[in-house]
């Protein structure tokens, strides 16, 4: 088993390098010159050169063949990419162009907000998606089955941003039950070790704070959860249907096991395998979806921050933000693979 995990971890490294390379390349694909974009159109010639020098924008992209020609081997490797990777290796993501704050700082600040939102919506998606999938699988072609399947299809086809707006319109504007946006009402203060307001408020026993944080997070979380919920419900149903047709289910029934035991003990554990993989993939869509939800609900997460940076051409933030989201995505898939191996003995004992 450990051999399998090690092999999986090793195979992640090329993907990571690939991801950093892709992000680096995007950076250099921009039409126009980053230095000008930073300083504005009418900046002076030498101030542009100073910026270029400072950010090492005038070094060659990958390898400096002129330096090599002069016999300077170390110069050969002194290029933007190598410096970029070097800085990356000790977590130096550079500074935001507009605000001069190190990218890492803001990242640390805003990251928990996105994590809390994504985590909550994933939990909602799983808690509703899996039971719906199981019920409609066990009662195939019944009313519940077709209703839940069409329902999950609607969930999958739901444009998150539009659902968010509808939620705001109904619950915030018309009924005024919930606040329209933001993460916490003014006047509330929640700080704790995890920086997840819901968790911290519970830890500190601050119920009012918890209620307020919850009222802020519930609408974006539900909006973000609709697509993964639909996908997980449909995948659970089709995976359960496949498993229920297997021979060992017939063997279990022939042993005298009741329907419930067959469903939850024998069928569910086998059906869980593909569902776990899907949940891993959904994590990615959640993070990407965060950009939209955070914009509508003005949620102080990294999704919104990266989006603003993209529009503002603030490359270090774009680079740092996308890299973090991609890393989370790769990490989640790695965890899913290992979870898969734990669940399936055929992989554990190769």
């Amino acid at each position, binding site marked *: 088993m450990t051999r399998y995990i090690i092999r999986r971890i090793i195979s992640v490294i*090329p*993907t990571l390098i*690939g*991801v950093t390379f*892709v992000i680096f390349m*995007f950076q250099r*694909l*921009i*039409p126009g010159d980053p230095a000008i974009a930073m300083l504005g159109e009418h900046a002076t010639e030498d101030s542009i050169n100073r910026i270029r020098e400072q950010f090492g924008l005038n070094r060659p992209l990958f*390898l400096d*063949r002129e330096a*090599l*020609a*002069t*016999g*300077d*081997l170390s110069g*050969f490797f002194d290029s933007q990419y190598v410096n970029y990777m070097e800085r990356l290796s000790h977590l130096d993501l550079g500074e935001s162009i507009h605000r001069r704050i190190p990218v890492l700082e803001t990242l640390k600040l805003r990251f928990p907000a996105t994590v809390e939102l994504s985590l909550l919506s994933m939990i909602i998606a799983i808690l509703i998606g899996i039971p719906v999938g199981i019920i409609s699988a066990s009662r195939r072609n019944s009313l519940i089955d*077709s209703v839940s*399947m*069409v329902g999950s*299809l*609607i969930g*999958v*086809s*739901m*444009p*998150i*941003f*539009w659902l968010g*707006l*509808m939620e*705001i*319109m109904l619950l915030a*504007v018309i009924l005024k039950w919930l606040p*329209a946006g933001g993460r916490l009402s003014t006047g509330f203060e929640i700080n704790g070790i995890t920086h997840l307001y819901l968790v911290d408020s519970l830890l500190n026993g601050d119920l009012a704070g918890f209620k307020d944080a919850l009222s802020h997070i519930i609408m974006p979380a539900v909006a973000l959860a609709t697509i993964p919920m639909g996908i997980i419900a449909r995948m659970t149903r*089709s995976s359960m*249907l*496949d498993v229920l*047709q297997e021979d060992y289910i017939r063997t279990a029934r022939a042993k005298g096991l009741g329907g419930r035991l067959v469903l939850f003990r024998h069928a569910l554990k086998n059906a869980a395998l593909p569902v776990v993989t899907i949940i891993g993939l959904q994590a*990615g*869509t959640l*993070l*990407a*979806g965060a*950009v*939209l939800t955070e*914009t*509508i609900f003005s949620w102080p997460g990294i999704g919104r921050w*990266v*989006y603003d940076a*993209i*529009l503002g051409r603030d490359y270090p933030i*774009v680079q740092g933000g*996308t890299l973090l*989201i*991609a890393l989370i*995505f*790769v990490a989640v*898939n790695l965890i899913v693979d290992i979870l898969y191996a734990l669940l399936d003995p055929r992989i554990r004992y190769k």
Partner: protein
Amino acid sequence: MTQINPEEFIVTDFAVREHRSLWGDAWRRLISSNTARLGMFVVILFISSATLSHFFWEYEPKKDLDYSLKLKAPNLTVTEEIPSIHPFGTDKLGRDIFRRVVHGGWNSLRVGIVAVGISLIFGGVIGLLTGFYETITMTTVERITLFGISGFLLGSLSAWIANQPLQLVGFTLLGLVAGYFEGFWAGQLKRVVFFSVLGILISAVPALFAGSSVALVCGVLGLLTGIFLALALDGRFFSNVMMRIMDMILSFPGYLLAIAIVAFLGPGLGKGMIAIGVVGIPVYARLTRSAVLSVVNKEYILAAQSVGESHGRIIFRHITPNILSPIIVQTTMGLANAILSAAALGFLGLGAIPPEPEWGAMLGDSYRYLTSGAWWAVLFPGLAIMLSVLGFNLLGDGLRDALDPKLRT
């Protein structure tokens, strides 16, 4: 004891059932499911309204401006205040939302078709080639092209460093030679040594003119290329490399990649299509590859080989017709996702450039007026997105049950 002698024995050798092709059966199953019928209805409505309006309903987005009708609620009767009927009401520039929603359909359709087209063509070809050459051993011609291309690609780095395009010719030739003489000292150390020496000769010697350290670096690269070409490059290795690249793209969350691409390439519907298309390539590549793998191990492919059919004929006559089902289902669902992604980009201001009518952009412009009660400007474009996407998803679901009926006992 009378026994009918077998000669004049009439055997009903075929239970008479009318002749039915597989596609005919699939169509009958599709029609029989009502969710599929609903999906088909919505899709047909969406496509016809989009195309008809584009060609027959004149609309000039730039000239459409009428401040007097700013943010009017939907009205079905003409009143003195509002001279014209606006079933969906009007937006902040007084433009009729109904008309823009219908015309927006054309843009969404275009984005969907082009994006899915890109993903399908590139992803499909990659999936087909990797799946096929992973199982079927290559003919000499195919092997030589694979070796030649690898030689060219690996050589290009050293050629760029030494700034001598001539090296490219050398490396490609090295690849072609390694491919042609695959059997030559196969699997022995001698072969690796031979080709690595050749690699060094091709790269280091010409690089000497550019400088000793350049020659050193190019020599190392030549050595690596030589070793690489000496090892038995085959379909499996090619497939592994391609799949790793696909995983890399897939490890990027779809939306974000599209947003990043469009942001860097600048807004505009055309770039949006390319972004969504590129993001979809690995999905289609993996899907096609697994469909091909399930077909290529079947005995009728071996039969085709034993008859001596060429690889091209095997791919087009035997493999492609049998992998269409999963691809059709994925394409339908893909169209749904493409429309959704296009709308998302539009909403973020990265899609269509105003005043071009596009559902996402319409939402993006009007959601600020939500708090001041202009609900119709937000409701109807969003509804249009959801319904069209739902239509494609329903149709896709129906197609999956119709084309691969194993689930319906």
